[in-house]
């Protein structure tokens, strides 16, 4: 893999210089070999993890897994249906909160750039993005579970997820909005369109694919969050879509089953992981499709 370097030495090279060149080339081969090794390590890791998830998760997959609720501790059988429904519901509610707020934040920062508060909004979004999710869980617990709602509830879980998602949406949409050529905005404004119409009818539609990307990214991320849900949604082994009751979720089920001693539950944890990975993988594929359309 080394590129042949034409040394700028005359053909009547002194042997020592030749040895130096050879030594340098050997050093290069060794180092590049190490770099290749590093790459292989990273690739092998990914493949190993995915392989285990697939191989150990597949045995758990059957109709009961997707349709039944869990059996009492220690009994074999049942499924994770409440957790599946819970994840979908949490995604829907948290998305309904986070996507508009995230888009608004991005619009605020890009379109109303001269505003006094544009910088704080951006700064705050980046900081929240860097916070450990358990800290966000503690915050939402104090605000909603102990405070406004008064007990563990699905809405608290959704709000916690929304807080995590907003910076992701905002950051991605901001990048996309910045790509919209200013000439478009200026032309519209010159034609007398009001600011809000420029944003809603011209800028956003142009950035449509990016907004979709942002939403998918954020939803995929929220589907895998566990720590904040431990403190807010608590978990529910019954089917529930009540926002004011605790709710189950895939990551919660995986965690509780993983640390249990029951083999059946371990298999179910792998199965639930497989479902999560497939869903997130599908989201990723969707992203690629959307991105390709954007370029076009």
């Amino acid at each position, binding site marked *: 893999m080394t590129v042949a370097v034409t040394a700028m030495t005359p053909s009547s090279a002194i042997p020592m210089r030749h040895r130096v060149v050879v030594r340098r080339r050997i050093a290069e081969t060794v180092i590049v070999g190490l770099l290749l090794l590093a790459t292989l390590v*990273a690739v092998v890791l*990914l493949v190993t*993890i995915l392989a285990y998830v697939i191989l150990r998760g597949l045995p758990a997959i059957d109709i009961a897994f997707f349709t039944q609720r869990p059996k009492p501790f220690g009994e074999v059988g049942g499924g994770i249906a409440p957790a599946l429904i819970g994840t979908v519901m949490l995604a829907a509610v948290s998305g309904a909160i986070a996507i508009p707020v995230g888009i608004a934040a991005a619009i605020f920062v890009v379109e109303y750039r001269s505003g006094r508060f544009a910088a704080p909004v951006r700064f705050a979004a980046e900081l929240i993005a860097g916070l450990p999710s358990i800290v966000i869980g503690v915050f939402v617990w104090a605000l909603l579970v102990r405070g406004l709602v008064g007990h563990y509830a699905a809405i608290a879980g959704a709000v916690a997820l929304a807080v995590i998602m907003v910076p992701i949406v905002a950051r991605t949409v901001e990048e996309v909005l910045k790509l919209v050529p200013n000439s478009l905005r200026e032309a519209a404004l010159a034609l007398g369109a009001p600011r809000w119409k420029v944003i809603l009818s011209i800028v956003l539609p142009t950035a449509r694919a990016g907004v979709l990307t942002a939403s998918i990214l954020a939803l995929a991320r929220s589907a895998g969050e566990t720590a904040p849900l431990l403190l807010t949604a608590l978990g529910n082994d019954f089917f529930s879509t009540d926002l004011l009751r605790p709710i189950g979720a895939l990551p919660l089920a995986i965690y509780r089953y993983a640390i249990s001693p029951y083999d059946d539950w371990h298999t179910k944890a792998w199965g639930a992981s497989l479902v*999560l990975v497939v869903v997130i993988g599908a989201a990723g594929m969707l992203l690629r499709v959307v991105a390709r359309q954007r370029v076009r």
Partner: protein
Amino acid sequence: MTRTFDRAFAVGVASLALLVPLTLAAITVLLLIDSWPSLTTFGFTYFTTTEWDPVKLVFGAAAYVYGTLVTTVVAVLLAAPVAVGAAIYLTEFAPRVVRAPIAFTIELLAYIPSIVYGLWAIFVMVPVMRSIVEPGLQATLGQLPVIGKLFSGTPIGLDLLSGGVVLAIMILPILMAVSREVLLAVPPTQREAMIGLGATRWEAVSRAVLPYARPGIIGGAVLGVARAFGETMAVTMVVGNSSRDISGSLFVPGYTMASAIANQFVEADSDLYFSAIVEIALVLLLVGIIVNGVARVLIRRSIADRPAGAVV
């Protein structure tokens, strides 16, 4: 009328957008209020004591801070060479055809949820650590004079080392993605100049490209550190969760700050105990803010501001 609507729209967008800094402020305030009893009772000794006793109501988080630092350092030491090495290989040496696909594959690691890492770590990684890696380390590096202490004690598998290793795997994709981005941003003139002067490919990279990219790569490492600091679930599942005196060994079960909160938050019943746990969250908040800020400044400076063709 349009003007009123325009204004209303702007206000509407602003109100939603301002929720973001408002949330950050609310987080800070709530954490401060709830950790107040602990802050005032223990003050600075909170960080210097390892005694964490819910019965006697004495709380010192030194062991948790130590655990977080140790696992983070291990994670960066393990992940950085692999990530940067892979990034260099994929930007400079790999056949062009495979560059993007392989990079994409590795970055896929970032999409795997933390809980799945935890699951894999408990059932696949920990047994390997316990029966192969840790005894191996003990037999080899454990025999050396100074660093041998790091590998002393009975290998259990559920310890600080495992915590560090799983963190390393988790920050690998971030480090690699940032490094790759930074390396790609280096103007080609840097490399070409070196090669024109007779350097081998590697020499060109190491002497002209890497120094140029170094701040950005360090920024990526800082981002990785930020991620490692706050990672909760995967670490909780393998780190051992036992608060003990700070010993010098990696084979000892420990806590990280995030895992301490995850384990003890729901049940910290006395006021002081509860506020001691919330204080951990407060510390994580503050550290997260600092570290994240530093990382982004470093990366942005490295990618955006260099004019093309500049000499290092």
